[in-house]
């Protein structure tokens, strides 16, 4: 285009002279003819030649003028074509950018919670465009943004509905579990009813786990909240109690630590899901091993099964599921047979900074390791071997003291007193008073007689609640404590035996 334009420019002075050529030639011819013809014909020839020359000059100048007009027109046309082509290219670029950059950016902004107007303000074309074309772009963008927003809103409300329903189910399940616990206490004497209650209890726990899973995927927290730290042993058992095949889980050594209150429920839930996977994808006759050891960065809980294991492809998939959990519950992804487990685990892991990995196990199955971060771990409430005692068992001794002086086991009290003083000795000492008393008791069992049994508590040192109460009453009565202490004590022990 540009080349032809420049050639026009170059030809212009030449073409300006060219139109003179025919009239000049004709004029020369006319003059020649007028000179050559006889004198009588000279005047008409001259006239005719002049007329023809003028006509040719007119025609030629007109032709040149038109040629010039055509030139300018062509030039303008080329310029316009270039401009149009440029615009076309720009629009093409802009449209491509709309498709590749602006729309994804807009959708991204929407998913982060921006409103439609904000998004439209944020997302602008780079280069200024035709107003009409830009308006068309904006309208495309707007309709897409609005559609996406409507869909996001739908998804959001579906999420909320999910979570809401899950919350209600959780509340009912919790109430049900409390009621069942009361019923278990009430009907604890009847093994048949009790067995049925345990069965129901288990079923309720399974329902609760499902509700928790849905709540977690909906972006909420799992069910209950615990105020006090719970020993890890009980947390692991809590996780076991929420799966179908808890009988197949072997709970091995557990680190003697506790989990802080906020971390308890997520940990229970994540472990329950992992245990559920382990029991579900391994043959029913195999065992699943559950251990917990302390590591540098916290506590590692290991779940090992002897199942079919993970193929490379399956492992990639599970890793992918564990990776992208922040999208939350996508109703479309659920499909016919929803696989919630790993999604729930990864979601919880992301929220509470658990580290989860699934690797092939030495047994051939899968070994799942969940590392609980240090900030969720605290010292166990009852250090030194009594792993779950604080949460499971009330100390028998203090409960007896206030009211009834009936049958307190004195051996329970002694070692704790002694263990305050010296480290390793109490175990040895406890055996010393224990052995004769047990021997005496066996003798008593053989003879079914009372005297040896009465002798054995008397032989044991006296820090019994009954004793000091007796001493108290005798002191109130003004009697000497040491002489009378044996009397009420032996009475009580005989009372107890009957």
């Amino acid at each position: 285009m540009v080349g032809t334009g420049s050639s026009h420019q170059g030809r212009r002075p030449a073409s300006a002279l060219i139109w003179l050529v025919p009239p000049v030639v004709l004029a020369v011819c006319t003059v020649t003819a007028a000179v050559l013809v006889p004198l009588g014909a000279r005047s008409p020839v001259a006239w005719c030649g002049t007329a023809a020359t003028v006509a040719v000059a007119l025609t030629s100048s007109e032709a040149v003028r038109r040629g010039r007009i055509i030139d300018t027109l062509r030039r303008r046309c080329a310029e316009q074509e270039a401009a149009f082509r440029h615009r076309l290219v720009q629009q093409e670029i802009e449209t491509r950018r709309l498709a590749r950059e602006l729309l994804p950016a807009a959708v991204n902004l929407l998913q982060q919670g921006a409103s439609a107007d904000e998004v439209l303000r944020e997302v602008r074309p780079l280069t200024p465009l035709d107003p009409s074309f830009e308006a068309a772009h904006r309208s495309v963008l707007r309709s897409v943004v609005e559609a996406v927003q409507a869909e996001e809103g739908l998804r959001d409300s579906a999420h909320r509905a999910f979570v809401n329903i899950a919350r209600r189910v959780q509340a009912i399940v919790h109430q049900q579990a409390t009621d069942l616990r009361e019923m278990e206490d009430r009907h604890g004497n009847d093994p048949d009813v009790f067995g049925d209650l345990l069965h129901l209890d288990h079923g309720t726990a399974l329902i609760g786990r499902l509700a928790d899973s849905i709540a977690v995927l909906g972006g909420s927290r799992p069910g209950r909240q615990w105020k006090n730290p719970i020993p890890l042993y009980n947390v692991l058992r809590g996780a076991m109690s929420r799966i179908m095949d808890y009988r197949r889980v072997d709970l091995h050594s557990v680190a003697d630590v506790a989990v802080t209150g906020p971390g308890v429920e997520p940990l229970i839930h994540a472990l329950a899901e992992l245990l559920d996977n382990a029991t579900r994808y391994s043959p029913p006759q195999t065992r699943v091993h559950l251990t917990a050891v302390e590591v540098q960065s916290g506590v590692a809980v290991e779940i090992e099964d002897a199942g079919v294991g993970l193929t490379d492809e399956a492992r990639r998939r599970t890793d992918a599921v564990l990776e992208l959990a922040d999208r939350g519950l996508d109703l479309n992804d659920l499909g016919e047979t929803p696989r919630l487990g790993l999604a729930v685990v990864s979601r919880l892991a992301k929220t509470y900074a658990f580290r989860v990995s699934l690797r092939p196990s030495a047994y051939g199955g899968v070994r799942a390791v969940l590392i609980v971060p240090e900030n969720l771990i605290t010292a166990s409430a009852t250090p030194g071997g009594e792993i779950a005692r604080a949460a499971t068992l009330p100390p028998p001794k203090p409960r007896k003291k206030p009211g009834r002086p009936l049958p307190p086991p004195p051996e329970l009290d002694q070692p704790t007193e002694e263990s305050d003083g010296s480290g390793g000795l109490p175990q040895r000492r406890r055996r010393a008073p224990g052995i004769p008393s047990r021997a005496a008791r066996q003798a008593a069992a053989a003879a079914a007689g009372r005297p040896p049994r009465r002798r054995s508590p008397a032989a044991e040192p006296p820090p019994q609640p009954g004793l000091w109460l007796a001493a108290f009453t005798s002191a109130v009565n003004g009697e000497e404590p040491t002489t009378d202490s044996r009397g009420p004590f032996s009475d009580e022990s005989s009372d107890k035996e009957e």
Partner: protein
Amino acid sequence: MSKPKNPWDQGNPDRLYILTTGRASTDKDLRLDLVTLIVARSETDPGLQPEHAAIVRMCDYPLSVAEISAYLTLPVSTVTVLLTDLLTNDQVEARPPVPVAALPDVRLLEAVMHGLQNL
């Protein structure tokens, strides 16, 4: 039975069926009554389940099944299952509370009573 009285509801994620791995009763003919006295026969073993360990620890002195149940705040059936485990491992010993055979037969007493009335 209100909630705060029950220590389990204040912070224990265990359920009862976990303690006994789902068993509610034992098929064994070990008859454990509410008043059967239980005595430990060995020291606690670190490998024991905490509940078992607690029973062994507290039964150093003879305790009835009902008492164990009360101190552990566990239902009697659960305690019975736990005790059966311990009994099969010979870690505790059960002792019938009152030798029933030592009591006179009720029918005999009735016969005596009737005989006396007939005099």
